[in-house]
């Protein structure tokens, strides 16, 4: 038997299961969510109790990770920060995805003038990158998680809508929708019971991916000092707070928070992309 071509299709092998990376990602996300729920309660020490004499001191007794630049317990701050960081990102993703799905389905269904108008509005909105909008929002509403979150959510809407609108249009063009229209089904029923459920997998995937983006961007805004305000514990704030220590050779505060963010973001993004790939696969 002659083998004509080399096999490079192996990567698609474990399509059905999650795989090692998938399970690891799921575990990371589960731990993060758990931390967000119980972290602020279970933390071993008061995350805001500062003692400058312990500034940047390493692991010490029950202070497993040591102290930050102001002598606060690092592990406690990481645990307490999980809630702020994750709820902020969840808020952004949720708002963007709900608005995006709504706009996508409505414009795909009605088309014509409605679609053209929505497209024009989104085009303008598209001109404002998330970070820029957040900075402007901070200038208007004052710095804080709320203004940053709102700004990011608004900035994400055009991106989410673009992806979902494409999917919704494709679905709208499927002849089963036409067949059910001919059956006398209402637009309401068709959108809610057929169109939306059929793009729901993609919506969830997009939401997951947006959650990852939101975590990064929110942290970036906190890092700029325009998001969550110190001394509140938040991973983005911690990276920023730890910068001076870092330059003096004490990288732990910045790095530990960075590792937390990178781990959760990569896990979430990996899962989101898997969901997206699967959603697209099943719609072939």
């Amino acid at each position: 038997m002659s083998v004509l071509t080399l096999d490079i299709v192996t990567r698609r092998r474990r399509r059905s299961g999650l795989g090692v990376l998938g399970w690891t990602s799921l575990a990371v996300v589960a731990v993060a969510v758990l931390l967000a729920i119980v972290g602020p309660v279970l933390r071993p020490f008061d995350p805001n109790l500062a003692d400058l004499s312990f500034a940047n001191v390493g692991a010490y007794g029950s202070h497993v990770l040591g102290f930050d630049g102001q002598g606060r317990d690092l592990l406690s701050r990481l645990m307490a920060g999980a809630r702020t960081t994750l709820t902020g990102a969840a808020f952004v993703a949720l708002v963007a995805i709900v608005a995006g799905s709504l706009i996508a389905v409505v414009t795909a269904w009605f088309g014509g003038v409605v679609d053209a108008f929505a497209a024009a509005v989104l085009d303008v909105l598209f001109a404002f990158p998330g970070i820029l909008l957040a900075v402007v929002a901070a200038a208007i509403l004052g710095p804080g998680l709320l203004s940053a979150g709102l700004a990011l959510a608004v900035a994400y809407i055009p991106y989410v809508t673009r992806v979902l609108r494409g999917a919704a249009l494709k679905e709208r063009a499927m002849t089963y929708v036409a067949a059910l229209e001919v059956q006398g089904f209402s637009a309401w029923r068709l959108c809610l019971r057929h169109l939306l459920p059929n793009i729901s997998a993609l919506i969830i995937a997009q939401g997951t991916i947006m959650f990852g983006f939101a975590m990064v961007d929110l942290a970036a805004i906190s890092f700029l000092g325009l998001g969550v305000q110190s001394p509140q514990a938040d991973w983005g704030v911690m990276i920023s707070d730890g910068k001076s220590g870092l330059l003096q050779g004490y990288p732990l505060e910045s790095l530990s928070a960075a590792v937390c963010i990178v781990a959760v973001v990569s896990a979430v993004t990996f899962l989101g992309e898997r969901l997206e790939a699967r959603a697209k696969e099943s719609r072939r």
Partner: protein
Amino acid sequence: MTRFLARRTAMLVATMLVASFAIYGALYVSPGSPLSALTGNRPLPPEAKAQLEARYHLNEPFLVRYWHWLVSALHGDLGESIPLHENVSTLIGQRVGVTAGLVLLTSVIIVIAGVGLGILGALGKGLVDNGVLLASTVSAALPSFAAAVVLQFVVAVKLGWLPALGTGHGFADSLRHLLLPALALAATSVALVTRVTRAAVREETGREHVQTAVSRGLPWPSVVRRHVLRNAAIPITTVVGITIASLIALSAVVETAFGLNGLGAYLVQAAQNKDVAVVQGISLVLVLAFVLTNMLVDIAYAVLDPRLTLGGRAA
């Protein structure tokens, strides 16, 4: 093509008009008088207040003020920073070079590394491809500020190869100072471009017309060059363009992290100080740069894809 350009330019002007209105309007309605920032919330004698209001056109109706602002902006005058008593255009002019340099250097890194690695991964097999995949996955998860922190610590603090902070003087020194920030800024974007490039080249390789070329007995390198890469260039150009456009705003983070004296970092400072004129001015410049870049992407797209003679880009 002329019609396409005209249409696209009209769209750009319309977008900028709406965007400028939004920028100006949003900051106009923001709580707190611009004067309070100037006076540090001290009460002012009425005549001094009136004098200041007249100087900064604070007593005119909103639309009139917007019109003044827009017309002067078109003449290159973005007004005056109240806290700094300086012309915003001048302030921007002093800093735009750093940001432009940073974005440019980052773009070069993204195009060379991202597109190169992507093609390598798509056409390579086994180890090469897996290596590219691994590198891009790690790098994709590295937000610019985290990359900044890591690079500062490892390259600047531990190894001492490159400076951790500051802008530098002269071309070579500036470049030395910009290298780490550019790498930090590029990290995520390179990964994104690599992955899209890899996917696009992969997808084109599987196309029927590529099969036709193979079936005619053309050498594989010719098929790759004339059909696979030529066609993959269309989605790759789009993603590279959009990625570069997104750097314009993201530069704020890296500039802040590395203490660069650029537009983004200055915008952040101005937002913290509620320096409305500066925030408006820089926002307008950044949005313009962003929109212009996107327009260039659209034009490149239309040039590369003969199927799109008229009308916009197929979403």
